[in-house]
């Protein structure tokens, strides 16, 4: 990620560190805020379910992007960390009789600690070797969840009561939207600001050249473990939200497929970009829903071959990802940047 966009010039560090540089960006902020506030009134309950799933995916994807995109540590273990968040919040709430906000907060902490623990191999391993070590952490976490009957209830699903706070029961997607949107916005703000701090900058230094970073006085060990902890904290939050939102916790929701999906979200959205995590989550969660609709249309148009429709849907899903990445390997965020540059310099090419 370039630190600043082309065509925008700074005279002081303070101005460079500012979150928003142009008037257009301020206008966009207002538009986004308006959209977040009005969205649940505009869409049907069906799309609201998808919007809520997107919101949770945004939180998890920002976490993964901090680790993979900003710190350069490829992880295939996101599903495992989501599971830790979901199970710890559910267990703390049910067995520990803690109120939901406390159990979610503790779940975030627990996941951060466990994430740091599984981040230890990152001190020795790099690249794909690390990816497989995190795959191992995913398998180990899910195995523990399945077999540790006394704590997790084994393979049976944990059922959670509807969230109730101050006498109000959060029953509908509409109610949950405000909680999820709140956390998603919080995740975006904290994510953006993390990379204006020294710690965030040291993450990027480790990603770009870890040996040079350590020569500059950055404690690479500490930085990597912290990146794992912070990233897992976001995953823990996303997991805990999933648990309370859906009211049911089962390990089948956190398989390797989910880890791969999250990786897909940040790659399609744009590595090393908070905005990209948001775009990616929107794209990858909406895509199956769109393909389902495409399948319905296909079925009515081509009813004699209805049996082939599911296969066609699978092919289309893969094809969209492949074509997308062939056209723009750096993701949706890059497309957005280029569009902005194009408009900013118009009528000049650059």
């Amino acid at each position, binding site marked *: 990620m370039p630190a600043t966009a082309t065509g925008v010039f700074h005279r002081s560090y303070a101005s460079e560190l500012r979150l928003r540089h142009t008037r257009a960006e301020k206008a966009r902020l207002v538009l986004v805020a308006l959209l977040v506030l009005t969205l649940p009134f505009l869409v049907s309950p069906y*799309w609201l379910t998808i919007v809520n799933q997107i919101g949770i995916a945004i939180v998890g994807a920002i976490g993964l992007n901090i680790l993979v995109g900003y710190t350069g540590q490829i992880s295939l273990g996101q599903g495992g960390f989501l599971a830790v968040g979901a199970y710890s919040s559910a267990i703390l709430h049910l067995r520990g009789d803690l109120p939901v906000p406390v159990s979610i907060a503790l779940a975030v902490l627990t996941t951060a600690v466990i994430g740091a623990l599984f981040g230890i191999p990152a001190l020795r391993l790099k690249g794909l070797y690390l990816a497989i070590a995190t795959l191992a952490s995913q398998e180990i976490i899910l195995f523990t969840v399945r077999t540790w009957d006394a704590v997790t209830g084994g393979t049976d699903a944990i059922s959670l009561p509807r969230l109730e706070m101050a006498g109000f029961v959060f029953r509908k997607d509409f109610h949950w939207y405000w909680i999820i949107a709140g956390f998603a916005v919080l995740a975006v703000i904290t994510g953006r600001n993390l990379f204006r701090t020294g710690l965030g900058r040291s993450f990027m230094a480790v990603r770009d050249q870890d040996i040079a970073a350590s020569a500059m006085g950055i404690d690479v060990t500490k930085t990597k473990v912290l990146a794992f902890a912070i990233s897992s904290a976001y995953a823990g939050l996303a997991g805990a939200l999933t648990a309370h939102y859906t009211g*049911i916790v089962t390990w089948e929701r956190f398989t390797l497929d989910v880890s791969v999906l999250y990786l897909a979200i940040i790659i399609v959205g744009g590595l090393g970009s908070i905005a990209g995590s948001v775009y990616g989550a929107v794209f990858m969660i909406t895509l199956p829903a*769109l393909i389902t609709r495409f399948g319905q249309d296909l079925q009515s148009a081509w009813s004699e071959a209805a049996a082939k429709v599911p296969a066609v849907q699978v092919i289309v899903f893969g094809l969209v990802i492949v074509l997308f990445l062939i056209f723009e390997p750096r993701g949706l965020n890059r497309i957005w940047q280029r569009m902005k540059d194009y408009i900013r310099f118009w009528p000049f090419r650059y």
Partner: protein
Amino acid sequence: MKHRMRTTLALAAAAGLTLTACGGPDAGTGGEDGGPIAIGVLSDLSGATADVGTPYSEGIRGYVDWLNANGGIDGRDLELKLNDYAYDVARAEQLYSQYVNEDVVAIQGWGTADTEALRQKVAQDELPFMSASYAETLVDPEETPYNFVVATTYSDQMRVALDWISEDAGGESEVAVFHHDSPFGESPVADGKKHIDEKDLDLGYKSYAMPSGATDYVAQLGRAKSQGAEYVVIQNVSSPAAVVAKNIAQQNLDMKIVCLNWCSDELFIKLAGDAADGHVMVQPFAPPNSGASGLEDAAQHLESEGGSLEQKGLHYTQGWYTMHVMAEGIRHLVENGTEVTGPNLKQALEEMGPVDTGGVTQPVEFSAESHKGVDGTGIYEVSDGEMTELAAEATP
């Protein structure tokens, strides 16, 4: 230039997809008088369980096509909203929400994943839910008021299997339970142990998890052998169960497999080949060769479409009759002039008395105290590649 071209193409692709989305789900047609009655179906047609999920889903669709072609329910058609969720919980939730939006009156689910994920939601939205997940945790209306279990529960199947083993062995024996490492697989394991203690059966009992994706189960069979197991009860799908059968044959082990319903099918026989002979199957749904009168409609319907029941297998009938039970509940409402809604359908299913399935299963009957449709199940033995009936109505 090249870059701009790329952007345009990517945007065009995105725009194309968004256009498909703009249609939005159709307006509902659920409970109004005279119109079709909408039912949401979650099917696995491309996911991990698509091998059996496809014929099951075709059975549901086949039944509804057949019913509508024969005048529907007192002139009212059933309208299926059927989509593939690829055994992905998040997709199931999306589709469920879409169905609720489309005013369906009931949901036909499929596996453990969607049934577990939705059991709270269906209770909250008051939508009766049937699926092919027969866990005993779903039959208590206090816990899961809107789940209906149409077939013999996994736990009852296990009890029947253990009773049969005890009888077949003529007393003392050792049983090894091989199960899928999941809620589905573990569901009957503890209840089986309890059953042995309660009925004081002289059976040893140990369970072994079957890791998915294994090419052999020789190590597990070795452990079962040192346990002294003479019977292997399998709670898993056909492909791995067939591998166990082949391993037993290759290792010349003297063990008899007792399959619970998900490996008791034609697929097991086809995949295991000669190694399938002599093994036993606990299957609540009558296989195509059983000659049960209830199979005729399905067979004729398939023949009119150029297929055959033998080719589709017993999972087709399973889907057909699961849908039949739900349709009978709706018929009860329509004939009494009651509005077709979720809560009314629940009440109808609980109060209308037994549903006859023409001998495919025992008559299915629910009550306000129990949502367990049937107690008994058939027991079959594989001989010469066919399922031969050992007992028609074994009850625990």
